[in-house]
């Protein structure tokens, strides 16, 4: 026998291996691979760096982590889709328990009542937030649920065009466009007017469209005339789809209450750490009439032999594993654990805490707007937690100089919007303090005197 690799994760001893090979009736492990044609076998060891022991591994990862400047090490006003909200400690319970962490999709409901009930509770929370009737168990993130929603709209309306507002997050639009090719959808974009979208322009574009997608608050942080945008869509027979921030929905109206057919969004604000952009969860909720066209897992209530309540994966005839090429989507692995972290965060907040968080974000952002009043880009517009400011030169240079002073002032809008090279998008969550905002104002004044 050759010496076996020492791994704490493999459980067989040499004796085990010998006994097992004997039971199988082969002489060596190699023989187990006899069906693999010689020509397609790898005849050398993988060219990978040598194995690291657990202490070495931790050390190596610590070194990599130390070469990142995270938001515990730098005062940051970065947002643009991912936000430094406070993630409460109860979330750790959901994330750390092996029974949740190491479970697969709850195909066998009797083994999985914990996750199933939790998702049912999550679906309820999302419906409550958005004013919708049904939510799926999560999509990949806030971009892919937008593509999903377009697919729903296409099938529901039989139309093959979707309208996106330009104030919808750039990467959401990019992903929709990528998917649209396969969906056979034309994508039309409606430019903004001074930071928000003109309902009249939407009305025009929506003609013959399957859906109109807009974001509230929009990518610039401004509040769209969302009810009017939805009305414009509805009048054209297109589905109104709002892309919303869950943490805003204690203070901002629920899309279900102003005419939207679907509400979608990036869940990260509720319960997820920033994690360099993922994994997070996308949420997707709809009015009842669309339930059988929705993509992804949906958990439903039922009863067992004794009439006791239980939960199961339901309406599976929408799904790939039952319907295959006729499915409403190809999704299977989704973002359950992140969504459950979201549930824990939302339950921790409760209706009261959610409203207070929204108010604090708004109040702090308003204070920041005051402090940066001379720079505010769309001073006419109401905002929630984020707003754009103008700087006197290329925003990326301003960011560099401000970071040298320990403050990341925000996102350079020019990366996505041509002609906005001198604009910064500033995000203010409830974790920021008035004195930190003062510091931002001071540093900006220093590196970019007006």
């Amino acid at each position, binding site marked *: 026998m050759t010496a076996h690799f020492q791994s704490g994760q493999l459980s067989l001893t040499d004796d085990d291996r010998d006994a*097992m090979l004997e039971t199988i009736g082969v002489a060596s492990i190699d023989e187990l691979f006899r069906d693999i044609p010689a020509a397609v076998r790898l005849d050398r060891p993988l060219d990978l760096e040598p194995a690291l022991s657990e202490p070495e591994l931790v050390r190596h990862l610590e070194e990599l982590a130390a070469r990142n400047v995270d938001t515990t090490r730098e005062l940051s006003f970065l947002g643009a889709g991912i936000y430094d909200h406070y993630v409460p400690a109860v979330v750790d319970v959901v994330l750390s328990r092996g029974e949740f962490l190491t479970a697969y999709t709850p195909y066998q409901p009797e083994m999985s009542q914990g996750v199933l009930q939790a998702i049912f509770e999550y679906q309820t929370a999302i419906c409550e937030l958005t004013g919708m009737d049904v939510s799926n168990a999560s999509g990949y993130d806030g971009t892919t649920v937008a593509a999903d929603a377009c697919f729903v709209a296409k099938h529901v309306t039989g139309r093959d065009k979707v309208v996106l507002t330009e104030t919808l997050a750039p990467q959401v639009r990019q992903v929709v466009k990528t998917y649209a090719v396969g969906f056979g959808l034309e994508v039309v974009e409606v430019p903004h007017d001074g930071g928000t979208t003109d309902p009249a322009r939407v009305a025009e574009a929506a003609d013959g469209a399957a859906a109109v997608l807009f974001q509230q608050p929009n990518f610039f942080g401004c509040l769209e005339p969302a009810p009017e945008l939805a009305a414009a869509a509805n009048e054209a027979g297109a589905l109104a789809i709002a892309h919303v921030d869950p943490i805003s929905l204690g203070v901002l109206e629920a899309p279900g209450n102003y005419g939207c057919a679907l509400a979608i969004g990036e869940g990260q604000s509720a319960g997820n750490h920033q994690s360099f952009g993922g994994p997070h969860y996308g949420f997707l909720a709809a009015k009842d009439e669309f339930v059988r066209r929705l993509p992804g897992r949906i958990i439903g209530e039922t009863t067992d032999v004794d009439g006791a309540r239980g939960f199961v994966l339901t309406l599976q005839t929408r799904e790939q594993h039952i319907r295959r090429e006729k499915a409403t989507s190809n999704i299977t692995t989704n973002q359950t654990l992140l969504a459950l972290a979201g549930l824990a965060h939302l339950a921790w907040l409760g209706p009261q805490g959610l409203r207070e968080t929204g108010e604090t974000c708004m109040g702090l952002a308003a204070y920041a707007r005051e402090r940066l009043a001379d720079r505010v880009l769309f001073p006419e517009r109401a905002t929630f937690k984020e707003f754009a400011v103008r700087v006197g030169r290329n925003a990326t240079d301003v960011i560099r100089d401000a970071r040298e002073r320990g403050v990341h002032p925000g996102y350079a809008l020019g990366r996505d919007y041509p002609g906005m090279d001198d604009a910064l998008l500033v995000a203010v969550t409830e974790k920021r303090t008035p004195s930190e905002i003062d510091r931002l104002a001071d540093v900006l004044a220093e590196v970019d005197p007006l």
Partner: protein
Amino acid sequence: MRLLYEKSQPGRRASTLPRYEGLPRPELPDELRRSSPPRLPELSEPELVRHFTELTTRNFGIDTGFYPLGSCTMKYNPRVNERVVSLPGFRDLHPLQEEEAAQGALELMWRLQEILAEIAGLPAVSLQPAAGSQGELTGLMLMRAYFADRGEERDTIVTADTAHGTNPASVTMAGYRLAKVETDARGNLDLAHLRELVDERTAGLMLTNPSTLGLFDERIEEVARIFHDSGALLYYDGANLNAVCGISRPGDMGFDIVHYNLHKTFSQPHGGGGPGGGPVAVRERLEPFLPVPAVVRDGERFRLDYDRPKTIGKVRGFYGPFGVFVRSYAYIRAFGPALREMSETAVLNANYLLARLRDAYDLPYDRLCMHEFVLSARTLKREHGASALDVAKRLMDYGFHPPTIYFPLVVSEALMIEPTETEAKETLDAFADAMLAIAREAEDTPELLKEAPHGRPVGRLDEVKAAKRAVVRYGFEEHPDLAADATAPRALEAQKGA
């Protein structure tokens, strides 16, 4: 167990939040202001912690016990990975942080790209896709862009009749037509049928190899030749990569595009449904079409490269599920070149279980298996009325998670068993003993199977009622009473798992 909403009391709360005096209080326009508060649950923090703790006790994970859910590669998820992914330098890093302040994260991604390329035997990797099924869709989009770029019109994708449901579903989402090739008596693709199907309209093949039967296609070279000869591409569904790491590489088998399931082969915990990760690797000629951004290395510096004019675009936000990359990278670094032993052990464990069970259940394809194998309960069903579903439910009483059932579709009453490499022989033996005992019970006391499970928090659940009634959220005062409409519960004899 009551729902959070049923435990809710007005005025109770768990959260404490900072409040600042003297902030401006901007007024919202009426029509934008929340009209009535969302009915989120109102509980104190002790109640919340107990609620979630109790929920977990009603759930089974790998940490609880053996979880041989075929095609899902439910291996042990090393705890150290949870530790490293929680380092603030990873966990609290904003994705739009300046590149020079995210070098560690970029380096990790770059290194993972390199590693995955070596494992697949294909040079270019995109980490972006969020899961296997999105990897598939991405792969098909790449094919489409590639052929469009060449001016070729190809509209059909061939999949195997053993394919996972995501394969045909992805084909549809990518706007392709589907053609299905049959499996022959040995469990390989039927070459004659394949030759019939493939023509100049064929864009490519999607194949899992080893297949969902747990069998390596012995004529994979010939399969590749058929497609390549007609100018088509081959896509490798990497769900079963756990069988062949360091042993046989998809690129060497002839595949042009591969997706990995980081949550299977590379140990990202599946979290009761997700997250996952579905990077894709491709041959050089497909690289220009990969999603943006790529992580590239310039000397000692790592950066995001958006300069790919032929890119299909973005398939999800930012750069993919970064936390998943951290775990999978850590996982792979703990093995290094010994990933080969990981796969060898997985295959050894599967064959051992197969050897112990082959006489008690039907074995549709009598070959050595790879990392998993498919049995059938068709004899039990025919002779004793005990279906694969009943066997699965009865296994719960023995303390095991059932295998995948009713998949792949080509095997009736299928039981698809994947033990993975991390299980001890004692565990495999205990599972085999249970399976053998159940086969005997099917003869002697079949009602034990049909009424199973007996020892779980709930009895067998009525899936038909769930679908009919479609109660998919709590309804507060109007919540229906499902217990009222009493029928014998019907669980679906349909795919569960994979």
